[in-house]
């Protein structure tokens, strides 16, 4: 299929439709509003639902309703709006419902700014809402991945009965790149016998619920869920390695930070410094093994982030404190320049972390 030029946000919307999602609920917020605008235009023409909800809270609960019915549903927002959705996300996780939440991150905390950020890493990967749970968190670094990982996020959510999150940022959302759009599916690949579609007087009633007042029962529910999470961790880790075979310095970065880091790595190589990149594509599950393996041969790591040092914790846990890990970051909507990352690589090469 021919490539088309598309904004990252639009690629998410079109890919979601092609993945069989026919229900989108959202609330306007920069820099992801193109997703809602795209859905508003397309959904009525294909018999789908676009609904501008009264709040982020309502939007995520509408998603909860559609997901309960066993259909693919999504909502999208940016950082402050995603905070509002956390209650609903916790309920989705607690009720074992698949759904897609898109966060096109902007600077925070509070109202923050509207420029790109990655400072919702903790919120996305460590819970965000209350209770023990995980989301599958996918981090696109190109418009192509905005499309591909949207489809992947729906598939994984259905497969493991858990919500997934596409953790993008304002840059990838707003930029245009050529994209090859995914094939159309109706999204009905996974059977959902648990869905509340009406008993038709033929079966016992299904209940979508996260309330278990008997602690023994709730504990079992949590343990079962974590057994499933273990399988996700075993089977679904995705990452890209770039020039790591002989690397002395291993940069770890995702999304826009990985794009910038690649430029820096190219420049470092021109200067004779053996730098490489591990780019996590799934942030949860995190590519722990790849980092641990790299730790055996590199001098050290650099976590390049648009946050004050969040992913760096996961890198340290993964490499088991064997090697030093430096932080190279800009925040508040600023993006590190390739020169800044190159400087960090050169420093690391000199053994300064």
């Amino acid at each position, binding site marked *: 299929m021919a490539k088309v030029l598309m904004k990252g946000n639009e690629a998410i919307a079109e890919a979601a439709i092609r993945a069989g999602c026919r229900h989108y609920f959202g609330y306007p917020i920069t*820099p992801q509003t193109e997703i809602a605008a795209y859905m508003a235009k397309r959904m009525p023409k294909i018999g789908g639902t676009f609904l501008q909800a009264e709040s982020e809270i309502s939007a995520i609960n509408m998603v909860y309703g559609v997901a309960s019915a066993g259909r693919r549903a999504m909502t999208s927002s940016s950082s402050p709006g995603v905070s509002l959705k956390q209650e609903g996300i916790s309920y989705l996780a607690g009720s074992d419902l698949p759904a897609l939440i898109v966060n096109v991150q902007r600077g925070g905390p509070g109202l923050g700014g*509207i420029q790109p950020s990655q400072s919702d890493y903790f919120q996305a990967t460590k819970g965000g809402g209350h209770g023990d749970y995980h989301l599958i968190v996918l981090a696109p670094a190109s418009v192509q991945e905005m499309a591909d990982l949207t489809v992947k996020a729906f598939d994984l959510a259905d497969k493991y009965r858990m919500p997934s999150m596409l953790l993008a940022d304002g840059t990838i959302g*707003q*930029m245009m790149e050529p994209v090859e759009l995914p094939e159309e599916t109706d999204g009905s690949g996974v059977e959902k016998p648990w869905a509340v579609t009406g008993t038709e007087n033929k079966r016992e009633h299904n209940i979508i619920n996260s309330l278990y007042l008997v602690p023994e029962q709730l504990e079992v529910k949590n343990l079962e869920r974590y057994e499933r999470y273990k399988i996700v961790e075993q089977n679904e880790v995705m990452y890209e390695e770039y020039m790591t075979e002989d690397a002395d310095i291993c940069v770890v970065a995702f999304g826009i930070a990985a794009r910038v880091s690649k*430029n820096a790595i*190219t420049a470092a190589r021109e200067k004779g410094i053996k730098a490489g990149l591990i780019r996590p594509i799934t942030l949860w599950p995190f590519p722990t093994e790849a980092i641990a393996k790299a730790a055996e041969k590199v001098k050290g790591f650099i976590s390049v982030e648009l946050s004050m040092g969040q992913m760096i914790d996961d890198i340290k846990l993964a490499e088991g404190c064997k090697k030093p890990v430096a932080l190279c970051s800009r925040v508040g909507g600023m993006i590190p*320049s390739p020169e800044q990352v190159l400087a960090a690589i050169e420093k690391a090469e000199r053994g300064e972390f």
Partner: protein
Amino acid sequence: MAYTQILIAGFGGQGVLFAGKVMAYKGLEELKQISWLPSYGPEMRGGTANCSVIISDTPVGSPIVSEPDILIAMNLPSFDKYENAVKAGGYAFVDSTLIERKAVRTDISVHYIPATKMARDLEVPTLANMIMTGKVIRETGVIKMEGLRDALAKTVSAKHQDLLEANLRAIDAGYNYKG
């Protein structure tokens, strides 16, 4: 292997993003690697707007252009801000109707085009951006003139297809401008 970074900057409403889109679409038709990144947010409503475009034979890394090979400055604040960022040996294209000063840099080739006045004279007052684009094509060859009509038709929204000819005329005028 060419890796050309373009920065287009001006006031909101001058068609900065659109000019970038035309180049991006044409680059795509020429089977190049492309990225197009706008500044976004409230500053687009009448403030300054800019747009990073990369047209390359190799995969695009960071889509953010901080050191352009080609700068298109559509107003003075943009020229003041970005003149020093242009790579040595690069190009600056300056709308001399709105920017009265000359370049300070001597290590870049600078082209002065009275694009806003030319657009007015051609009775396409909103298309100074396309006049600048025409000149950029002539001087840098970053995209080709052949097949531009098709790329433009894809860039112009369905409801503005009647402006296709006007856009082509403006690009031609810039392309043929000697100065």
